[in-house]
C-alpha cells in the first residue's frame, strides 16, 4: 500500500503526491461558501471604513476639546509657530483678519509686471466659504522665495497620501498675455487608493527641464493680491486635507517671465539660453520625493517667477481668471 516508502524507489515522490492528492480529493467548498465569502468581504470593508472614520472623528473631537481647554490666545501662538516663515514674520502677531494678512503678504518686493500686476487684471477668486474656518497666514518676506515644504504634518490619524495614491484628474495651463509673458493654470488630483489619506499644503512645486528634470531656477512664491490677483484668494497656507477615496483637491498657479531678481525687463522674445528646452511644472508630494505626483508643460518663454495657492477642495473658491 505504501509504495512511496520504498527507499530510493522510482515512484517515491510521485506516490506521495498521488496519495496526498487522493486523500483530500473529496474535499469541496461547502454550499454557499462564495456567498458567505462575499458577505464577509463586504462586512470587513465596512468595518475598516467605520474604524477609519471613527478614528478621525475621535481625533477631531480631541482637537476641539484641546482647543477649548487651551484657549484662543494660546491657539494663536501655536498657529503662528507653524506658519511658513516662522512666527517672527507675522504682522506683529496681532493679525486677526484675512484682509490684513493678505495686505501684509502683498507688500513684498515682487518684481513688477507679475501676473496681473498693479496694471493687470481685476482681482478675482473671492472665497465662497472659508475652509475649516482657518485664517490666512501668509509669509512676509523681502524675497518671493519660499520653502515649498508642507509646514504641518499631515493628519496623524490618517496616513499621508503617497505618489501612488494620487492621480491627476484635471489641469489647465494658459497663456494670458498676448506677448506670452504671463500664464495661469490649475491642477486637480484625486485619491485613487481604497483608503483615506491626507495631503498637506502648500503644494511642493518647481519648474524643471522637462527632459532632464533639473530645476531651471524659477522663483516660487505664494499667491498675493498684487502679484497674481487672478488666482483664487485661497485663505489658507499649509492646510491639511483628508481625502476619502475618489475625493479631489486642487491648487492654482501663475507664472511670469519677469525674473524675480535682476532687472524688470521681460524677455522680448525667445531667449536662446533658456528656450532651447521644454520646461515643466513639477508637483511633488514631499520636498525630498524623487517621484513627481504630476508634471505638466509650462509654456513660459524664459525664466521668471511662479506663484501658487494653497490646496483647496473643488468648489470652495470662485475660480475665475479675471479680465
Amino acid at each position, binding site marked *: 500500500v505504501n509504495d512511496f*516508502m520504498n527507499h530510493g524507489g522510482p515512484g517515491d515522490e510521485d506516490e506521495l503526491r498521488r496519495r496526498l492528492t487522493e486523500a483530500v480529493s473529496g474535499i469541496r467548498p461547502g454550499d454557499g461558501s462564495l456567498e458567505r465569502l462575499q458577505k464577509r468581504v463586504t462586512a470587513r470593508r465596512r468595518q475598516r471604513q467605520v474604524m477609519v472614520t471613527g478614528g478621525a472623528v475621535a481625533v477631531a473631537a480631541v482637537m476641539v476639546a484641546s482647543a477649548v481647554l487651551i484657549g484662543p490666545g494660546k491657539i494663536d501662538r501655536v498657529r503662528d509657530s507653524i506658519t511658513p516663515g516662522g512666527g517672527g514674520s507675522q504682522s506683529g502677531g496681532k493679525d486677526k483678519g484675512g484682509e490684513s494678512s493678505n495686505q501684509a503678504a502683498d507688500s513684498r518686493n515682487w518684481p513688477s509686471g507679475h501676473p496681473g500686476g498693479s496694471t493687470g487684471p481685476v482681482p478675482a477668486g473671492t472665497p465662497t466659504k472659508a475652509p475649516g474656518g482657518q485664517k490666512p497666514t501668509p509669509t512676509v518676506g523681502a524675497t518671493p522665495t519660499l520653502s515649498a515644504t508642507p509646514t504641518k504634518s499631515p493628519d496623524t490619524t490618517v496616513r499621508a497620501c503617497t505618489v501612488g495614491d494620487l*492621480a491627476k484628474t484635471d489641469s489647465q495651463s494658459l497663456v494670458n498675455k498676448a506677448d506670452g509673458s504671463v500664464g495661469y493654470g490649475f491642477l486637480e488630483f484625486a485619491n485613487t487608493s481604497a483608503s483615506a489619506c491626507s495631503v498637506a499644503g502648500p503644494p511642493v512645486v518647481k519648474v524643471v527641464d522637462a527632459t532632464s528634470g533639473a530645476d531651471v531656477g524659477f522663483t516660487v512664491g505664494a499667491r498675493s493680491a498684487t502679484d497674481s490677483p487672478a488666482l483664487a484668494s485661497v485663505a489658507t497656507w499649509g492646510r491639511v486635507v483628508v481625502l476619502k477615496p475618489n475625493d479631489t483637491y486642487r491648487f492654482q498657479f501663475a507664472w511670469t517671465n519677469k525674473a524675480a531678481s535682476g532687472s524688470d525687463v521681460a524677455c522680448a522674445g525667445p531667449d536662446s539660453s533658456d528656450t532651447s528646452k521644454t520646461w515643466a511644472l513639477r508637483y511633488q508630494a514631499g520636498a525630498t520625493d524623487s517621484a513627481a505626483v504630476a508634471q505638466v508643460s509650462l509654456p513660459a518663454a524664459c525664466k521668471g517667477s511662479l506663484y501658487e495657492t494653497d490646496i483647496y477642495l473643488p468648489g470652495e473658491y470662485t475660480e*475665475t481668471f479675471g479680465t
Partner: protein
Amino acid sequence: VAFDVVRLPHARAPYAAVQGAGVALPESTESTARAHTLTQTYQAHYGSLLRLAALLLDDIASCEDVVQEAFIRVHLARRRLRDPDKTLAYLRQTVVNLSRSTLRRRLLGLRLAPKPMPDAASAEEAAYDSLERDELIHALRGLQRRQREVIVLRYFSGLTEAEVADVLGVSLGSVKAYGSRGIEALRTVMGGRS
C-alpha cells in the same frame, strides 16, 4: 493687455477620460469589478487552497475559516499587492500562515477541541471522514509543523524547493532538510504500522 476670461471647470473629468489614467472607478462600477474579481479568484483557487488547508489543519471547519480569511485579507489588500499576477502565491502564503496561527492557538489551549462540523452536507462529512481514516494523513499530522508544511507544499501544491523556501521564509537548505527528515519520519511511522 486684456486677459482672457477663463472659468475653471468644477466637474470631474468624465469616466472614460480618467480610466486610462488609473483613476478610481465610480463606486458602483468599482464594487461590481471587485465582486467579479473575487468570484474569479474563488473559482480558480478556492478548492485547491481548501485542500491545502485540510492537509495543514485537522478539521474541515477550521479549513473553511482559514481559507475564507485568506481570501478576505488578500482581496482587501489587492491594491497594495506588488504583483497582482501572484495572487495565488499570496493566498497560499496567507493560508499557510493562518493555518500555523490556528494550530498555535490550539496548542495554547484557547481552542483545544476542533470546531464542530457546521451544517455540512453529507458529501462533505464523507470527505472529512475519509480524510480522518487516511493512514498517510494521520502520519502527516504526527510530523513536526515545518516538516508537514514542506511536504504538503512540495508534494501537494507542487512547489519547487525554492518556492517553498519563499513561502515559509526559510532557506533552501532548511527546506531540503525538513523535506528529507519529514519523508524519513513518514516512512518510519507508516512502516511501523504496516
